[in-house]
């Protein structure tokens, strides 16, 4: 059974049909790419999948469960985590606290314990810190644990955002243009990181990207979006050599 099944997804803003009859099926463990020219509606699809917008029509099924119309917070608990096109870190908090904040729903102690540091506080905090450090080590960010998130170099900030998303234990990870603004070295490092987390955590990844080297290098299947509609989908090689896709990107003669 597919991990994510999206059927007939539509949303309009005023008279503009931003996403129309969008469909997509992602199998467990796949590395899936969503590409398309600027303004095609890729980020809108992400926002629909994560509950930022509620679709006008259509169904989103995650792991057999209908999550259409769930709120952002619920969708995170359903098992979808995401990163953002323009990095959104908790910039005035240390790197490790960015990850700890994402563990929020997995560990609990009362507000009273928080205010007095009594009760379960010490025990649970110890577990949270260990989990966070383990996760930071995977992303090679443990050296920066106490650094302010805003002081990290750009590439590391992207990595931290992925680490934070991973901390919520998702089934499906959405990456919105993870390589945007990166130099070729950083992109190469990022590709390694993405493959590493897919293999290590056995997670399914859907990513939006413009960098065709990255898309062609790691994605197994692609969906191409143009003017809010699916232009074509299939295995990466086939899609990238499809004349329709080339036309959409480069224009007509």
């Amino acid at each position, binding site marked *: 059974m597919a991990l994510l099944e999206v059927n007939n997804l539509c949303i309009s803003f005023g008279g503009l049909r931003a996403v129309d009859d969008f469909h997509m099926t992602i199998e467990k463990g796949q590395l899936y790419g969503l590409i398309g020219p600027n303004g095609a509606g890729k980020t809108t699809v992400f926002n629909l999948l994560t509950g930022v917008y509620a679709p006008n029509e259509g169904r989103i099924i995650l792991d057999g469960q209908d999550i259409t119309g769930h709120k952002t917070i619920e969708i995170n608990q359903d098992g979808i985590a995401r990163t*953002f096109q323009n990095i959104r870190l908790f910039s005035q908090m240390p790197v490790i606290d960015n990850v700890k904040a994402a563990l929020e*729903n997995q560990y609990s102690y009362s*507000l009273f314990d928080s205010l007095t540091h009594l009760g379960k506080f010490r025990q649970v905090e110890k577990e949270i810190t260990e989990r966070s450090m383990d996760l930071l080590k995977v992303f090679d960010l443990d050296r920066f644990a106490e650094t302010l998130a805003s002081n990290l170099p750009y590439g590391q900030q992207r990595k931290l955002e992925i680490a934070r998303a991973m*901390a*919520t234990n998702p089934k499906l990870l959405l990456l919105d243009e993870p390589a945007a603004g990166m130099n070729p070295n950083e992109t190469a490092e990022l590709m390694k990181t993405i493959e590493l987390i897919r293999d290590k955590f056995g997670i399914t990844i859907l990513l939006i990207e413009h960098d065709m080297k990255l898309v062609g290098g790691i994605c197994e299947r692609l969906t191409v979006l143009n003017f809010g509609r699916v232009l074509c989908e299939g295995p990466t090689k086939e899609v990238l050599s499809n004349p329709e896709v080339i036309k959409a990107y480069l224009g007509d003669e």
Partner: protein
Amino acid sequence: MTDKILKAMTPKRKTAVNGKSPAMTYFVVLAAYAVLELCIKTGIMSSHLQGLLVPMVYYAIVAVGLNICVGILGELSLGHAGFMCIGAFGSAVFSLLTDGVLPDGLRFLLAFLVGVALATLFGFLIGIPVLRLNGDYLAIVTLAFGEIIKNLLNALYLGIDENGLHASLSNQMALGLSPDGKMLINGAMGVSGTPHDANFTISMVVLLIALFLAQNLVHSKHGRAIMAIRDNRIAAESIGINIVRYKMQAFTISAAIAGAAGVLFSHNISTLQASSQYFGYNVSIMILVYVVLGGIGNLRGSVIAASILYLLPELLRGLNKYRMLIYSIVLIVVMIFNWAPAAIAWRENLAAKFKAARKENV
């Protein structure tokens, strides 16, 4: 390579928000207490100055409370004097009702809890609608709340006799109290006869408790969630943080601490009046000034700024006309030398520029 440089450059600190270690904060407060107490005992301190100590401490407490709202939660509140007002009147009425009935210590403890509970309740009630919204609504609503509470208490007459409590918003006669009844709140005349339970030592204890709770909150799961909302609401939502719940928690705690300061206020003054001088929006703004100049998000800074900026205009009273002039200069100096991360960065920038300019000249 860059990683190494970066690591060397980054100061080792627990969090950016409350850069200083909590233990140091308690030490500073305790040291200040010891010195001031010594001055009182040895008779160095004038009685005028002694009278300023309790107010200084309760303003420091409200500043800590407001900093939780402004610095940790990142929402602007312009009505913390209103929460103080509620704590003050609630506890004063309770104290009048139980004076002579309960032993003094127990009565004050209960009055304290009543004041804090009422402020908490109002913080909660205001939070329910307002904290669901994003933007500056909290500032607007709290500003109005502070004024409404003040004006309402100014017009409220409350009395008690053998038939129970009587309340009126028109005048004292409308209460229809029996001859041996007792006035609790006498309109604009306020509450008089509240026992003087709040002394410097008790105030310092309350300040330490407020600091303890606030600093613990910052270094906890709840504090992290609250600061995550402050730093990026959309990202916080995307990792499953319940925005409204944590905003409510932070704001309610903030209101509760302001209420605690109000209790000290009412138990340190002979006649408690809901006047603009004590509970108007000017006071709310003044507390905000303490918080901003102490460093937004810096709890220790709030205490220091509140203490200095409260004492200064009082001590300068002798200088008459020049008082406000000196006060404003001090404000500017404090602005330059405060401990907010942004201010520290600005100072470093400025210093670097000066250095560069000097090199060019040579």
